């Protein structure tokens, strides 16, 4: 027959066309694999080596020490401040300082969350290097 167009080849196939689906799945897979290691975020905190008493730096007075006290208050170089004012105070302190270095001294009863929050605010205020002060043995009493 001359008009048997596709007469024999018309096999109705019930299969779904899976090729686009596989494309999508592969892309998903690759996205998963790439974002897993890349998505991590962290703060870098300097852990200065323990200083021997005679090596005490003479520049001690110019250091900025943010203190998280046991009673929930904050202090910058012994000057009490509040959490709300912390950002403004840190901006005030660090805007004119070339050395964006701050130490954090935390009472043992404060939550780790508060420390991260304080570091977060400090980063936001332009602090580039954050250090933990060495623990003072007499203050490690616990609650």
């Amino acid at each position, binding site marked *: 027959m001359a008009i048997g167009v596709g007469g024999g080849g018309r096999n109705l196939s019930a299969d779904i066309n*899976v090729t686009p689906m596989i494309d999508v799945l592969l892309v998903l897979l690759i996205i998963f694999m790439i974002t897993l290691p890349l998505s991590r*975020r962290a703060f870098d905190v300097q*852990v200065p080596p323990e200083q021997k008493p005679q090596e005490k730096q003479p520049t001690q007075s110019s250091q900025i020490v943010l203190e998280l006290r046991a009673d929930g208050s904050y202090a910058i170089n012994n000057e009490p401040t509040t959490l709300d004012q912390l950002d403004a105070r840190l901006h005030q302190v660090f805007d004119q300082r070339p050395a964006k270095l701050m130490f954090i001294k935390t009472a043992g009863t404060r939550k780790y969350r508060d420390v991260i929050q304080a570091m977060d605010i400090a980063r936001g205020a332009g602090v580039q290097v954050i250090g933990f002060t060495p623990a003072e043995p007499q203050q490690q009493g616990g609650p």
Partner: protein
Amino acid sequence: MIDVMLVLLIIFMIVTPAITAGFQASVPRARNPEAREEGEFEIRLGIDIDGKFYLDMTSRVTGQYTGPKYIGDADLPALLQQLYASRSSDRILYLKADQDLNFARVQEAVEIARKAGVRVLGTITEQERQPRAPEGG
């Protein structure tokens, strides 16, 4: 073929949390942390809500990743010392601690790390996108 893909996807979805099984910590959120790509042989120290230490790393000797392993307080100093003794440049320790921990516990870990020769501590946080909700002390 699509079966294989689906299975792979499901395996990935299941394995990702399972890798960290046995160690659970709700990591604090922050707005300004830096991106820190995971290195192959980095050393991660986890502290869960109970204050237990977990060491999470790929062994440089065997090249095998075994997931977070519980480390007793008494064993941690020697272990970290041994790990960092052979490292001269990358003296960084990633710390994944629960946000509700008392800082005293974190401080203990920091002191141990300091004595082991760690110079930089990477405190792992999660990126917070929306503005911080007002928190009550």
